[in-house]
């Protein structure tokens, strides 16, 4: 990188998954890099989302599996849970994620870290407190925080978010979760396993709207019949009111107004990108959905790139890492790489797990792409029998030429199984080749081969 | 018919072009807003608006009469070469208006070509105006500052008016100058009737591109038209 007329070649704002990766890539290329983080290095992934929720879901599923194990002749009726110990387990998982060591690692690769809130003063200058730093280029990777909708009464009533709900030291007796997307569904399942009566409310017509309809139908049925939840779709929360130790939630279902009294209310209504850092001063265009970038993750300010959840795409940690790498590479090189999310898998840790990759059926219909699809229930494979777990399916979408376009797996271990299909999409592999590839008998993976074969 | 095509039509076009230039209107808008924010009476607003409009009127009138006087002394005022030069300048001015009159960018309101420091000074000066004399000088300044753009239509108008019969010249001059200050008069009337400044300003911002392109295009067409009419004699 060239001779410096600024303090740094690159300043990365945000020390989460995207920011740390971007900083490391630039530092390894020989640039003088600074990384600014307001809270804890590592960002929300190890502290507030993937790691803690993953750890808690593991514990919840272990309890769930234990309860089901009575069918195998095991005496599991007395299995219970010490909820505060669950918090210890969660904290251990966070500690073991290595977030503490991030700062040391960054120092080793030559990234200078600053703690504080960065604020743009001009396209090449930021302030952190009263300190001013300048750089030739910037990467904005400030992530996102829980979005709280504009509901009457929230000023006075207590409510939980996905970040505060995981810190509870005892499960509430009743819980109303607003938002039946990925996070809402996960937390709903978690609390219901630990005995909470959960009301899952969403304004949309189905839960888990980002997935295909079959997924929504299956999980709505599971939540209602197995978990004992009340799922209220097409319902919009219009008010909350504190009532002593409980909260009264008012919601609209069509024209009908209803009220529920619950102990706690949790808002899982999505994320709001953290764009309050003076982006106007830098000439960076943004809106309520996040920072506006082109396919190379470059913003409207030619010297500023953006990566991760601040873009409003809200993927997993690996999406943020991918973004960080692309943004860093593009700001270093003349020839630029466009982002391609077509082969980005997405996993949701419910029981059973959901994993998707590629295009959804709705996308293909919207883009008028010719396709063929098949849905095969897990019950057809041997593993469903031996594991006594037949819930779930695999859906494959293929093009008229036979290449894989998209896949949804609902199955224990779906997060591991999806990698094969991700590779297939990335390499343009024909579905017939997957069907011809031996998959071990008695494994969950067999469902993938069977689904491809039936197509 | 010859008179209409050779005199009144280009004169009307020149007046229309001059009307669409924005500095005078912007300054009066700011002045009005400043007077209202200082909680001055409606009478005071009227006085200052009138002083400002009178300043613009006087400056434009002085300008056109001065040019006419110079042209009377100039032996080649109706010569082909002189018209060629004038038409060239007009076409050039049209191109400059289309390219530079308003500042480019999405959130620039009705910012003009003026250097930012000059614009800021003018803005501060306008806000501090409390006396009629100051408002009058501001009116004069608004015309002087835009001479770069209004010179072409003004010279063309003067060059056309010197060919009008002597007894009709004063009326023609006053009519021309009145048309050029018409937007100011309309703004002052709207203010008097209690219209909000923001309504007018929104309209200006929404239509600035249209006004810019039409002013520039009209200038180019005027230049070409006069070249064909006066120089080629078609």
């Amino acid at each position, binding site marked *: 990188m060239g001779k410096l007329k600024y303090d740094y070649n690159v300043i990365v704002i945000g020390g989460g998954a995207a920011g740390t990766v971007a900083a490391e890539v630039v530092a390894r290329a020989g640039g003088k890099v600074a990384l600014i983080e307001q809270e804890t290095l590592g960002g929300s992934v190890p502290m507030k989302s993937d790691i803690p929720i993953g750890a808690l879901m593991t514990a919840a599923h272990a309890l769930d599996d234990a309860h089901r194990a009575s069918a195998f002749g095991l005496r599991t009726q007395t299995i219970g849970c010490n909820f505060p110990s669950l918090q210890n387990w969660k904290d251990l998982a966070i500690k073991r994620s290595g977030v503490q060591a991030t700062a040391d690692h960054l120092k080793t690769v030559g990234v200078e870290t600053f703690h504080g809130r960065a604020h743009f003063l001009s396209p090449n200058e930021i302030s952190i407190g009263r300190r001013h730093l300048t750089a030739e280029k910037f990467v904005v990777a400030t992530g996102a925080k829980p979005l709280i909708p504009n509901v009457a009464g929230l000023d006075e009533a207590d409510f939980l978010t996905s970040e505060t709900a995981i810190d509870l030291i005892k499960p509430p007796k009743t819980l109303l979760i607003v938002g039946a997307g990925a996070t809402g569904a996960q937390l709903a399942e978690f609390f219901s396993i630990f005995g909470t009566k959960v009301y899952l409310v969403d304004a949309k017509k189905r839960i888990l709207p980002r997935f295909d309809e079959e997924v929504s139908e299956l999980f709505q049925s599971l939540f209602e019949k197995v978990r004992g939840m009340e799922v209220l779709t097409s319902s919009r929360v219009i008010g909350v009111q504190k009532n002593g130790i409980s909260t009264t939630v008012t919601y609209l279902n069509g024209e009908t107004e209803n009220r529920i009294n619950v102990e706690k209310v949790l808002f899982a209504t999505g994320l709001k990108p953290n764009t309050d850092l003076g982006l106007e001063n830098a000439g960076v265009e943004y809106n309520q959905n996040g920072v506006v970038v082109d396919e190379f993750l470059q913003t409207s300010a030619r010297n500023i790139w953006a990566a991760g959840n601040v873009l409003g795409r809200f993927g997993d940690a690996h999406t943020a890492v991918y973004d960080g790498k692309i943004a860093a590479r593009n700001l270093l090189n003349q020839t630029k790489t466009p982002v391609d999310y077509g082969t980005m898998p997405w996993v949701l840790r419910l029981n059973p797990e959901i994993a998707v990759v590629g295009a959804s059926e709705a996308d293909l219909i919207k883009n008028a792409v010719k396709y063929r699809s098949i849905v095969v229930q897990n019950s057809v494979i041997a593993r469903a029998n031996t594991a006594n777990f037949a819930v779930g399916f695999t859906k494959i979408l293929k093009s008229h030429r036979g290449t894989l376009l998209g896949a949804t797996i609902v199955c224990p271990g779906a997060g591991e199984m999806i990698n094969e299909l991700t590779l297939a999409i990335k390499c343009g592999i024909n579905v017939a080749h997957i069907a011809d590839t031996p998959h071990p008998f008695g494994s969950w993976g067999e469902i993938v081969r069977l689904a491809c074969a039936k197509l | 018919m010859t008179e209409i095509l050779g005199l009144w039509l280009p004169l009307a076009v020149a007046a229309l072009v001059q009307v669409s230039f924005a500095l005078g209107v912007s300054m009066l808008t700011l002045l009005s807003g400043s007077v209202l924010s200082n909680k001055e009476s409606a009478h005071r607003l009227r006085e200052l608006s009138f002083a400002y409009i009178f300043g613009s009127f006087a400056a434009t009138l002085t300008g056109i009469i001065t040019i006419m006087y110079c042209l009377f002394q100039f032996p080649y005022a109706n010569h082909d070469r002189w018209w060629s030069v004038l038409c060239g300048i007009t076409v050039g001015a049209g191109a400059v208006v289309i390219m530079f009159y308003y500042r480019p960018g999405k959130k620039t309101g009705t910012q003009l070509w003026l250097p930012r420091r000059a614009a800021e000074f003018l803005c501060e000066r306008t806000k501090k105006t409390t006396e009629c004399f100051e408002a009058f000088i501001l009116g004069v300044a608004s015309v002087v500052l835009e001479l770069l753009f209004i010179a072409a239509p003004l010279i063309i108008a003067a060059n056309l008016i010197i060919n009008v019969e002597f007894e009709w010249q004063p009326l023609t001059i006053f009519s021309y100058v009145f048309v050029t200050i018409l937007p100011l008069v309309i703004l002052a009337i709207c203010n008097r009737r209690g219209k909000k400044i*923001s309504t007018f300003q929104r309209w200006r911002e929404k239509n600035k591109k249209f006004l810019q392109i039409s002013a520039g295009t009209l200038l180019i067409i005027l230049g070409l038209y006069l070249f064909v009419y006066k120089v080629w004699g078609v």
Partner: protein
Amino acid sequence: MTRVMGKTETEYSSERLHQSIARVAASNRTPLGTAEHFAREVVKKIENWIGNKSEITAAELRLQTAAVLADYDPETAYLYENEDKLF
């Protein structure tokens, strides 16, 4: 204290912000009482937005104020945002 960086550097003052909002509202013929009420509400929200920021620019303070003011009086908010863009 939050510093406001503009042509000159000044400390943020809620009183000055209140007056600037009220002034622009008055220039747009908003009744005095209404202008004062809007200015009070907007200043409260702006102070929430400023939070613990140590430095902001005058331009972004203007933009943010206009955005908040737009919920109360869109016409005045437009004028507030474009006051320095008339010419």
